[in-house]
């Protein structure tokens, strides 16, 4: 059984007082298997958010259907299995971090010692134990994102829907959220991720779908979609100039062409994290 099954989904928004209509999603079909991290990509207005909202039952489809672990998304029961983190979440600013998790736990049917235990676990998991008694109005963007992740996990869902989970978060926070998502994957949680940070999507997603103007234009395993079939990358360590000269000779004899030869570079993100973490130590 698929974690998410979308079949021939179409969503049309009528424009009030006009005869025009906006087709946000057109005949979309895709499957997300349990345990996968699926990246839904696309430019602004491509239909990603509408698709997510339909999966979550917040918007009803004009045609087609969506199912979560076999249950129709229109059924409230299907949301037992889902945790959702919206883009730029605000939550109730008058609540403290702990109160917010208690509230979301209660509406998911948790109470008493079990709720307190689960809240403690999640505050620990997202690194907000020190801020548990602080009101959300005083939380930074990154802290809000992390409390959002904690509320999404409160009822131990099997599926997480994350809309731009690292939007506005600094590189260190972004890396930590990425690591958390990889942890969820290890635990067998399915993740549907919408993000504009393509490098991050590339790092964590098993499979991606690209939406453009409401149409799924490409879909498949990430490594298959982005690999260049007729090229091979070899990264050497400790190779002497003589060894390199012999390799070049062999290559020219075989007829293969060297397209690029350079020192591998670290990523800007890794460089930034190294610099900021070493300055913290000093």
């Amino acid at each position, binding site marked *: 059984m698929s974690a998410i099954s979308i079949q021939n989904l179409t969503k049309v*928004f009528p424009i009030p007082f006009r005869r025009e209509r906006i087709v946000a999603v057109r005949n979309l079909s895709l499957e997300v298997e349990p345990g996968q991290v699926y990246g839904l990509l696309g430019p602004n207005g491509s239909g990603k958010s509408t698709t997510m909202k339909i999966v979550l*039952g917040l918007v009803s489809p004009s045609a087609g259907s969506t199912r979560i672990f076999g249950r129709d998304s229109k059924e409230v029961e299907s*949301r*037992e299995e889902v945790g959702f983190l919206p883009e730029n979440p605000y*939550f109730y600013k008058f609540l403290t971090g702990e109160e917010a998790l208690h509230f979301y736990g209660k509406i998911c049917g948790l109470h008493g010692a079990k709720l307190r235990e689960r809240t403690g676990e999640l505050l620990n998991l997202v690194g907000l134990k020190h801020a548990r008694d602080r009101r959300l109005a005083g939380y930074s963007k990154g802290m809000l994102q992390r409390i959002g992740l904690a509320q999404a996990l409160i009822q131990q869902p099997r599926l997480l829907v994350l809309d731009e989970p690292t939007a506005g978060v600094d590189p260190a*926070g972004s890396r930590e959220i990425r690591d958390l998502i990889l942890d969820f994957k290890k635990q067998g949680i399915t993740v549907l991720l919408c993000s504009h940070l393509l490098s991050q999507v590339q790092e964590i997603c098993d499979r991606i779908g690209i939406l453009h103007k409401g149409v799924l234009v490409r879909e498949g395993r990430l490594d298959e979609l982005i690999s260049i079939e007729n090229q091979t990358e070899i990264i050497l360590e400790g190779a002497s100039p003589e060894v390199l000269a012999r390799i070049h000779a062999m290559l020219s004899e075989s007829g293969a062409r060297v397209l690029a030869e350079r020192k591998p570079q670290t990523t800007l993100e890794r460089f930034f994290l190294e610099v900021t973490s070493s300055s913290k130590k000093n």
Partner: protein
Amino acid sequence: MPASPPPTPAIEPTPASRHVFFSPARIWAIATNTLLELFRLKVFYFLLIFALVLIGSSAFMIEFNFQEQFQLLKDVSLGAMSIFTWLLSVLATAMLLPKDIEDRTLYTILAKPVPRFEYLIGKLLGVLLLLLISTLVMSALFVIALWGREQMVIADTIRTSTGTPPAQLEEVLRGIRSSTFTFSLIPGIAIIYVKAALFASLTLFISTFASSTIFTIMVSMACYFIGHLQGIARDYWLGSATTGPLPRIFLALVALVFPDLQLFNLVDDIVAGNSIPMVLFAKTAALGGLYTCIYLLVAYFAFASKEL
């Protein structure tokens, strides 16, 4: 965030059948959260204004006799209580739904296994709790003010009655005590609450299709004024004086959609010293409850199909 994150708790699959269609616990969680929200928004500060109104009204009482003093205090207090509970019901309810939508908090709640009708009931219940607490606090302030005034009048009477036979003085004092708080005021206060509850429900309904808090408040206030004219519209609709089809449709619409708020003005009679029959009180309270339920039901139908 700590440098080395602690081991993550194991995620077990949730049992597929644990969802309950109607959960009072979920509704209560939303209601208490709504009450906490309104409490932390410091909406109770308006009670200070109510207290100031009571103190301010005392300044005008010096030149009246004791019956007039108590009459004025009851008039001012119950009138202020009626206006404050109505304003509170409209202002507190109007911001709840639009704010949740604007802040996207609503997404995080409805993305959980929470049916939309439970969300609406929870929100309304939160406002009703707020109104109940406010009404009780205002009633307590009113009783304290009335008692304080009674003590002052009694002290004045005793001071100025030297030489009056004790039996005659006792008679005067009994007259003063019977003019202050009487249990006949309680149904009047209860109807003030019922009217505010009706308006909370009506405002919640308006907020399900309104585009902003301001629009919700404006429409709700317009309904308040139309509601006070509903009786006239109903009489014209049912009478034979209006014959044109369009005016009749308009009058029928006003008569059917809006509550007759004049029916809820029992306080004036009570303050004037007339006791209200229990049957009338029960009928008025039941009518208010019925309107509250109808508006909540209509709010649900509007909200159930709302695209978020």
